[in-house]
């Protein structure tokens, strides 16, 4: 019997190696897998490459991971936030490498990794500093930039419900990067607020089929309704 449900966050995070590329879901606080990120700090992996839309804010989650000195590089679209001071100071001190990617190119590069697309031409960023040095091409009168997939070793995502096969549903705009990051990582670990019996999720509304998920761990709902 296949059972992807893990008993604890610590169990679910076992084996994340130093040097791993780790995708973390979330847009602002919505969909941010805070418990898994806290667990990753405990777990101790270092020299990480983080892929996220933002670069952490305040003192929790990604910001705490940065503060703990575990991150070598971050690939994101919007690191600068009102309270992104841990990112800011590490970046200014030259202790953190940054690859800045337009948000839609970030999403499409993650999707391309999951979908086995080798590279794709996108109009976004053409003629800007973020496309400097990249291959460009005119296609049907429009200019495009060639972008490559972003693969990950691990994806940490937050979903709403999950079952023992790893099927997931999400809640409102907390869906954001979760479904595509799940497809792009060798090992996708999902925290959920509720685990359900096999068959309890309507097959029409499963957003992430279990094929993309290796581990599911239930966490208590706390702070989900608060700003993060």
């Amino acid at each position, binding site marked *: 019997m296949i059972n992807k449900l893990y008993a604890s966050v610590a169990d679910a995070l076992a084996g994340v190696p130093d040097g791993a590329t780790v995708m973390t879901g979330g847009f602002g606080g919505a969909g941010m897998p805070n418990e898994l990120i806290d667990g990753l700090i405990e777990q101790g992996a270092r020299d990480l490459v983080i892929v996220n*839309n933002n670069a952490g804010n305040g003192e929790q989650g990604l910001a705490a991971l940065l503060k703990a000195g575990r991150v070598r590089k971050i690939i994101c679209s919007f690191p600068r936030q009102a309270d992104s001071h841990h990112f800011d100071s590490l970046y200014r001190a030259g202790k953190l490498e940054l690859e800045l990617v337009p948000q839609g190119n970030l*999403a499409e590069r993650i999707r391309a990794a999951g979908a086995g697309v080798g590279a794709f031409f996108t109009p976004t960023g053409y*003629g800007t500093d973020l496309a400097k040095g990249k291959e460009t091409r005119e296609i049907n009168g429009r200019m495009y930039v060639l972008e490559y997939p972003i693969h990950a070793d691990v994806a940490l995502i937050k979903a709403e419900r999950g079952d023992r096969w790893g099927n997931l549903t999400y809640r409102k705009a907390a869906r954001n990067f979760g*479904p595509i990051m799940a497809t792009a990582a060798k090992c996708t670990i999902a925290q959920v607020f509720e685990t359900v019996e096999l068959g309890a999720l309507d097959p029409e509304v499963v957003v992430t089929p279990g094929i993309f998920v290796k581990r599911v761990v239930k966490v208590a709902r706390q702070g989900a309704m608060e700003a993060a």
Partner: protein
Amino acid sequence: MSYIRRTRDEMAARVARDIPEGAYVNLGIGLPTLVANHLPRGREIFLHSENGILGMGPAPAKGEEDWDLINAGKQPVTLLPGGAFFHHADSFAMMRGGHLDICVLGAFQVAVNGDLANWSTGAPDAIPAVGGAMDLAVGAKSTYVMMEHQTKAGESKIVERCTYPLTGVGCVKRVYTDLATLAIGPHGVTALDWVDGLQFDELVRISGVPLREP
């Protein structure tokens, strides 16, 4: 003759007037967010948020915030009946694929050829952050800009050529400022309207670039 600049709300109302029923619209963070408050009641307009929402409604009542339902600026919003959620790749496919009719963005500078600069001032110590700006700039059928006409130092933000780093090339169709509404086309910039009491010659002088009368 003297003139009075449009307030931020007047600018937002001016933009809102040009958004027709049935339009699919993305309002950028900052100034453009105000446009939502001025959309005529009874006109059905579909608001898109880059983080996977279509049919976004107004801010919730105090105490009713749901932090899983936020907009691109990370403020709590609501969903209208008939709205839908989707993931980030689908959301940006919606933009990049040209399905949005109108995108309204803030800007540092707009050039007479439609080039847009709104993501970075290029300051050497600045921390860069782009978010969805570049995707929005090229993704809608029409990209509108909403900004003050001049910087605080009195320099025109309508320029021959952007000096700040570009967000998108030749993408802006209209500019709504506190002084005027400008259309950018293949033959340059046309002033569609400007505030009462302001003479066209004065608008041209303030703008510092050639303008055509409507």
